């Protein structure tokens, strides 16, 4: 039974759990992008800020034309500026998640070795 259990442990530690860590890792990557709405903000990157836009009234006036277009451009620029911040936060958090994921993934695979090293180190340091 010990041999069977040891085999099962190896499968669990080196195959099953890494698979689960990868799934959870991907979920956190998705979360970091979703929480900061990166995809949606990228899609609406140049959309006017809070939908504020001006429309041309009837008749043509160069002054009004310029006025409206400049105002709309400012609204869009403002929207893009604010969105940039959130997108950057989202991307930074995603990079942090990716790096943490790598550490956890490698750390888990190396855990048996790390435990042995810790015990060895502890014995050396204490005694």
């Amino acid at each position: 039974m010990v041999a069977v259990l040891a085999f099962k442990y190896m499968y669990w530690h080196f195959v099953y759990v890494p698979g689960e860590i990868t799934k959870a890792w991907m979920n956190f990557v998705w979360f970091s992008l979703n929480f900061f709405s990166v995809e949606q903000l990228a899609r609406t990157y140049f959309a006017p800020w809070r939908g504020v836009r001006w429309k041309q009234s009837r008749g043509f006036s160069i002054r009004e034309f310029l006025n409206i277009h400049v105002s709309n451009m400012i609204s869009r620029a403002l929207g893009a500026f604010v969105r940039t911040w959130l997108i950057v936060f989202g991307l930074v958090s995603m990079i942090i998640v990716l790096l943490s994921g790598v550490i956890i993934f490698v750390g888990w695979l190396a855990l048996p070795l790390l435990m042995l090293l810790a015990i060895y180190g502890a014995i050396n340091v204490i005694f």
Partner: protein
Amino acid sequence: MSSFNVKKAAIYQVISLNALISLGVLARLATVSLWLGFACFGGFLVLFVAVVSAQEGQEVLFGVSLLLFAYSAAVFALSRFGEYLKRARISAAYENEAEFLGFEPARAVLRAETIAKQEKLAMVSATVLVIAICKEQSSAIRFMSSRMLLDIKALEKELRAVLAQEPKLEEHRKREYSEDFAKTCATARRLAKEQGRERIESEDLIAALATECSAFKQLLIERNFLPDQEIPDIARWHLRIRQKNEERSKFWLKKNLRRYGALGTDWASGYTITLDLFSLPLTKEAARLRFPLAVGHEKEKAEMQRILCRQENNNVLLVGEPGSGRKRLVLDLASRSALGDTKSELLAYRRILEIDMAHLVSSAQSTEELEETLSRVFSEAANAGNVIVVIDELHNYVGGETGTRAEPGRVNIATILSAYLRLPQFVFVGITTFAGLHRYFEQNPSLLSRFGKVEMSEISEDETLEVLEETLPSLEVRYKRFVSYQALQSILRMSGKYIQAVPFPQKALDLLDEAMSYVAQTRDPILLPAHIAAVVESRTQIPVGEMEDQEREKLLDLETLIHKRLINQDIAVQEVSAALRRARTQIASRQGPMGSFLFMGPTGVGKTEMAKALAAIYFGSESRMIRLDMSEFQNLEDIKRLLGSPSQEGLLTTAVRENPFSLVLLDELEKAHSNILNLFLQVLDEGHVTDGIGRKIDFRYTIIIATSNAGYELILRALKEKKDFGALKEEMLEYVFERGIYRPEFINRFDGVIIFTPLSEQHLIDIAGLMLSKVRKNLAEQGIGFVITEELKREIARLGYNPMFGARDMRRVLQDKVENAIALALLGKKIKRGQNITVDAETFETRVAEEAS
């Protein structure tokens, strides 16, 4: 069960591992040692930074922290590995049936084997398994026994007594598994499979034992439980809680991560300043309630989302009775939208806002101002691009004359609303009732055409029970009282039986809340069925508790009780009593009313009196009788009066809706229009009918009695010719079929067709005696004795009998001859308190009697 061996199953490895060191303890140890490790490492850092000289102390702390990290990592890995083994997938190729057992069931089986060995039993039976489960004290058995108010120790003691009767193991024989043990495992596996699980959990095993272990089943029945219905239900309840907790603990799942929401989703959407001022954010409400999802109504949920995603006419008109869960459905949508868990991406992360119409109407000083504000609100919603607008009880705002305030607080926004409903970017949900739909929307087809209609059906009793179970924890915390499963069942049964004006689940939820509030005012720590009965009694004025307790005795003794009020008609009384007993004990599978009878016979023979007697005995009062003179329904147009319409209440449907627990008397049925009789086909068959505004009216808790004089001539002739009454029923039925008065399929739907025979002279004398005894009772209350002579009874019977009208005139004769005479004597002070009087049978004059009878 040759292929059943727990010790050869993979799960046995976990049990062995757990026997060495408990996996639960391991998990806790891992946490403790990790924190200790952190503390040591912190200590090492402090020493390292602050006291550089303390070289030795630093090294020890660093070493200890390293050791603790190694230890916590090992313990953590081991405990997680144990959990993995508990839930490892099962290969379908396994021959050993014990492979399908979960961790706790496998442990219970091993314990059962040990008990069987200790008791030297020939077989490991299902009874032993129940005892083992009781001993194991798994979370499932603890939860189930506490909700069911079961004393596990007492149960175990009784089961031990049963165990003593089981055969002992003979020498050189091998112990085997009994047949009921094998059946239990098979049933448990089936239950697990039905719920999409491959492993048998404790809940499955207990539910299976409730049906397969005869001793356990018997003990549950003795404690008033239905083993094959209620035990699986409580088991499912516990499993649902367990699965929910397990799911919530997995914080890394997408489903849980969604709960944190998303930032900046509305940055591309317009500002909604006026809309925000006059609306309630349902999305925030859903978040506050931790994203509640509605139980049941799957079809309606899918339909609603489908309509809202359409390119055009993406507006929903949610039609249903108040309390049917309309708002819950909208909250469900708000929850799903906030979690981004909708069927279509178009509905994800929407703001769902309910317009506060009362606030909006009261804020406006004039109709023009109201229209202007409303237009701004709708315009902002349309321009925002991420808003779904909801208006509750929309019918209150779309009727009457356009733009005027015909009634205080009532306005008509139909024109403005129609203009916006046309816009694809304006997404709208209107909530209304069936009455509102018929009365207002159907009168305005252009408005109605802008909507996709979603009709809410009433959820089932099982789904309602699930809603109650979900609501329970918050109410228990609020009122600091524990709710027994029996109380939940009572709520379900009594709200279904005695309250019909409100649909499920609301009536059950209201009753639960009211009962909790009631019990909180007492010192009782547990909500019991008696408390529910008390609340229902105060709400409906029906003596529920007493009736539920006495129903059994009443049914057993129905003949005697009816005969206290009704003379003769022995066969009729017997047939009604027997049919009612059959119906109430649910021997025959049926969905119709509790009982339905057709009383046939000449007038004045006690048909109506029998109905009154039944109402008084069975429903507690004669006032619980809904009486309809069917001669008033001779035309097809009268259907509206019977079933109701948007403009009028139905004489039958409204009465039954308001008093679902009552007797319905349909007098002179043969005079009703044949199409009206057809309506009763469904009532008698399925126990419900749809009223004129689309509501389902439940007749399952009514007794329906129809009286008919059709063919009474045959009875009179049979009496004259002294024919056999046994054959008369067939003859009468042939007669009514031949004449087309009733159709065979109509008659067949009654539980009994009962022929009332004319009264004999002796019966009439007895009826006179019964009537006179009522006069005696009234006089006795005034301290006056009344002696009823045989002559007086005979004379009343003689004068009161009419071959055409039976005993119907007897009441009038009694009034004219006896009651009038006594009244005159009382007013003329000829009678004094303490005296015994009698009425002369010849002159009908009052005189003082010699002695009381």
